[in-house]
């Protein structure tokens, strides 16, 4: 809201230095966003918080400034009283008093419409409003001054020369001042004449009844409307005006008549018309205003600095609250936001100034903070993967539909955003893969095709009609895995299925209890021959593989792209409390290699199963150290190098012990997969 300073100081007897005023207002709670220059001098652009509708006016702002300067403000009293005017019976009928608790109107004749006084025009312009004509300008002027929206009708255009305040009938139409034909219904409160709506109550007038050069008689409306009703109609018609903005927040119902009289007086002053009559005032004011008690010691306790009874009553008095008895105040009608003691504590605090608040740390029993296990796990996981050379990315939860956006073969429904405005924000991700792939594509376009990325994030899917979130780890690798060194062989290999599987094994080894099993899988997003799912205790928890060549072709990525996703809910953070010391072995181990030749179709798991079946007691561990194909091997054959580590916990092993074990192992491999061994 823009207001010229010279207008404010008309009501507030305070220094008019723009910077000082901006600072004062800002520190009292009315943030001055900027100071501009206009024909009438400096203009403050003030941001008013939604609870302070009373500050949407010159008088409201002046009152705040006076309080902040600890001076009291005197609002000018209208010269004319309502009693001086004849009441015109039957002029106004309020059929919906629930939505319009007060409707007041003046009748003016001898109206001469023309341009308004230069001073009024200049002030309106400085406030960001366009000058229309003398009558309309004065309604806007009084609205800016007092906060009370007004509307002037050309009385001769009102059928029956009467006002009826009622709910609209279904499909009733009104062409508003902006030229738009509005279709209305019973949820919209309208101002009507005896035939049809002539204005949207509290929002905008109608075109057929607007003030024109031919206007000679005016009905000047000053009314109070239900904020929720104005807000609902304004929202449903997508029509926001200075009037609706104010009615949605706070308009002082007690100021209805004085605003009308003020406008009437201004019109008379400039010779634009003469006030001749008024309607009956239907206002039934609360018989007693709300009073609130504020205990100075309570205020001091909550604010953190001592506040005296004197300071409380002076501060609240300057804000227009009236001291009723000891520490008890009557709340003015323009402050519906003050409903309990704490609200008054805030008023006292902000006006005295928050710079008075000292800095103290809360003292309490010393309790160590506790962190959620999921948060600890995610952090340990990040540390592990960063150490392994991967870079963490953070991508969007809100995503467009994407071919990668499904978890495994689980095709359960996407969690959709209701009435989404764009496809990119239409639903929640079911998988981390679209975000990872998008990141890879963007970076590849900028020349970074070698990527090792991970994300820890939540994915969502509908389970029945409930959206369920799940914390996951997503991995993407493409291209070289090593660092960019200055010797060609320092670059490492291209990432492949086994690289990513290795990462998953690292993670599972660290955070999963129980043994994970990798099995061939058939996810449509992945290369049919290069993918596996991971089962932990019979539940599928991860999927790893190379992106399907058809999708790879669409992605424009040159390197092969490897993807993995792992559910983190079965994982637990590693903690000292769950680990147990194992003494290093006392006896030497013996390491022996054997190199079975098997068909290339023979799966490594067959070999694992065979070894597992006969596992000699002295076999501590074994590992695959090489795979060889090509001459001198026959086509269709491969040679594996298996390195066995033998050890006993009780004695030093002999050659005879290991030879015996190797015989058993060779025999098992011969039987399981027709392995042969070089002589």
């Amino acid at each position, binding site marked *: 809201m823009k207001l010229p300073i010279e207008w404010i100081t008309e009501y507030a007897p305070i220094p008019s230095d723009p910077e000082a005023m901006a600072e004062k207002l800002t520190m009292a709670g009315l943030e001055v966003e900027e100071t501009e220059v206009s024909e009438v001098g400096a203009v403050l652009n003030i941001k008013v918080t*939604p609870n302070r509708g009373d500050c949407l006016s010159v008088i409201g702002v002046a009152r705040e400034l006076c309080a902040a300067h600890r001076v009291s403000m005197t609002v000018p009293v209208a010269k004319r009283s309502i009693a001086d005017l004849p009441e015109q019976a039957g002029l106004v009928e309020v059929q919906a008093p629930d939505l319009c608790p007060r409707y007041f109107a003046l009748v003016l004749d001898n109206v001469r419409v023309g341009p308004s006084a230069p001073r009024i025009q200049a002030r309106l312009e400085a406030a960001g409003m366009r000058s229309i004509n003398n009558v309309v300008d004065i309604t806007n002027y009084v609205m800016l001054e007092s906060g009370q929206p007004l509307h002037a009708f050309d009385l001769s255009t009102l059928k029956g020369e009467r006002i009826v305040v009622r709910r609209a009938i279904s499909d009733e139409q009104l062409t508003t001042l902006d030229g738009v034909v509005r279709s209305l219904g019973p949820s919209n409160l309208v101002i009507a004449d005896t035939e049809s709506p002539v204005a949207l109550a509290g929002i905008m007038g109608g075109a057929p009844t607007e003030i024109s050069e031919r206007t000679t008689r005016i009905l000047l409306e000053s009314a109070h409307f239900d904020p929720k009703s104005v807000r609902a109609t304004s929202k449903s018609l997508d029509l926001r005006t200075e009037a609706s903005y104010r009615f949605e927040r706070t308009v002082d119902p007690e100021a209805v008549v004085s605003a009308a009289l003020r406008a009437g007086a201004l019109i008379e002053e400039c010779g634009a018309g003469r006030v001749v009559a008024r309607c009956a005032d239907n206002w039934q004011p609360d018989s007693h205003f709300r009073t609130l008690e504020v205990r100075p010691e309570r205020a001091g306790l*909550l604010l953190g600095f001592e506040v005296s009874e004197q300071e409380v009553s002076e501060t609240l008095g300057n804000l227009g609250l009236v001291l009723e008895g000891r520490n008890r105040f009557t709340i003015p009608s323009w402050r519906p936001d003050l409903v309990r003691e704490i609200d008054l504590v805030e008023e006292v605090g902000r006006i005295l100034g928050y710079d008075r608040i000292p800095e103290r740390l809360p003292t309490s029993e010393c309790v160590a903070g506790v962190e959620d296990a999921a948060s600890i796990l995610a952090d340990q996981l990040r540390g592990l993967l960063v150490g392994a050379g991967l870079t963490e990315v953070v991508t969007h939860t809100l995503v467009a539909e994407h071919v990668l956006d499904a978890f495994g073969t689980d095709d359960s429904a996407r969690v959709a955003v209701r009435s989404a405005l764009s496809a990119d924000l239409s639903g929640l991700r079911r998988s981390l893969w679209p975000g990872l792939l998008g990141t890879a594509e963007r970076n590849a376009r900028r020349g970074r095709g070698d990527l090792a990325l991970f994300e820890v994030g*939540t994915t969502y899917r509908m389970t029945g009609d409930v959206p369920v979130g799940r914390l996951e780890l997503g991995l993407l690798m493409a291209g070289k895995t090593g660092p960019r060194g200055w010797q060609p062989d320092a670059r490492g290999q291209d990432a492949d299925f086994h690289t990513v599987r290795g990462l998953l094994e690292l993670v599972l080894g660290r955070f999963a209890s129980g043994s994970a099993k990798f099995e061939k899988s058939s996810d449509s997003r992945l290369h049919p021959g290069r993918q596996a799912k991971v089962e932990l205790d019979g539940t599928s928890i991860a999927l790893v593989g190379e992106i399907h060549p058809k999708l790879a072709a669409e992605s424009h990525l040159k390197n092969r792209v490897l993807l993995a996703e792992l559910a983190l809910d079965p994982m637990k953070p590693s903690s000292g409390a769950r680990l147990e010391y194992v003494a290093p072995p006392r006896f030497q181990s013996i390491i022996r290699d054997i190199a079975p030749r098997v068909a290339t179709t023979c799966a490594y798991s067959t070999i694992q199963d065979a070894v597992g079946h006969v596992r000699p007691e002295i076999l501590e561990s074994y590992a695959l150290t090489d795979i060889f194909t090509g001459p001198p091997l026959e086509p269709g054959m491969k040679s594996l190098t298996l390195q066995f580590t033998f050890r006993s916990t009780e004695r030093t092993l002999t050659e005879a012990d290991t030879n015996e074990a190797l015989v058993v192992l060779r025999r098992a491999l011969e039987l399981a997969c027709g392995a042969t061994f070089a002589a």
Partner: protein
Amino acid sequence: MNELDHILEQGLGAVRAAATTAELSRIESEYLGSKGVLQAQMKLLGALPKEERPAFGSRLNVAKASMTDAMCERRSVLASQETDLQIQAEAIDVTLPGRPIAIGARHPLSSTIRQVKDVFLRLGFDIAEGPEIEEYRYNFEALNYPEDHPAFDEMMTFYLDDTRLLRTQTTAVQGRRLAVHNPPMKVATVGRCFRYEAVDATHHHTFHQVDAFLVAEGISMAHLKGTLKAFAEAMFGEAIRLRFRPDFFPFVEPGVDYSIFWNNRWLELGGAGLIHPNILEANGIDSEQYSGFAFGLGIERIHMVQTGVPDLRLYLENDMRFLGQFA
């Protein structure tokens, strides 16, 4: 000159002439080895008359010792020369760059979140997580939002259905905690929030926020200020100046926004205040006995202030050139 003297002279000459330790080893075995010439002289000993044996034996021992001494001396000279040569030959270009080590990088948001959590843990706050898909009542109702009020206009919300939405603020966790825990409590939550905003350098529909609250007896605005100050100093450095300004959030009263003095101006960081007594009472907490404070701020905002990143959008773009800077 007898034969032994001759052998010794020849041997000492050969030792002096030896150019490498390898040659020296050859000479050693030639003269002192089990098949060497001095060993051969030893065999002559038996053939000598008994009375000449001690003298000859003694001369032989002296000759052996002389050879051994000369050998040792020469070896140390040669070995040292050879080491020098080897060292010379092994010189490398130390100005070559080191071989890079492949480590990854944490995302700056997750590093900042970690930093924030650690500060709160040090201050004795629990770190709690809450759901991103939130219920209307926790995001708004439990936070004292009046029904259908203009305050909502500042919170453009992604709704999933009539009761579920994407949380617009991590403050939603407050309602959940207050509903099931009794004071005193100190809780901080960090997480992702969503608001329907047009995306530009300072606005995004997806952002991250930390919210902290404390409920105990006798909590005042001074405790809020002290805690915020401790937090700001941990995040931004020593001697941070802090300023409160009145502001409005339905869930706090008094409500403030707070700024730090940074690069010669006041920089707004977030919102704060005393938890509204309506909220405490709705959760069965006596608002006369207990009071509490709450504050929140953006994770992106913290990192932008710390590092000077000018554009919020960079965080979710994941350009490796950006992420690499904060490894």
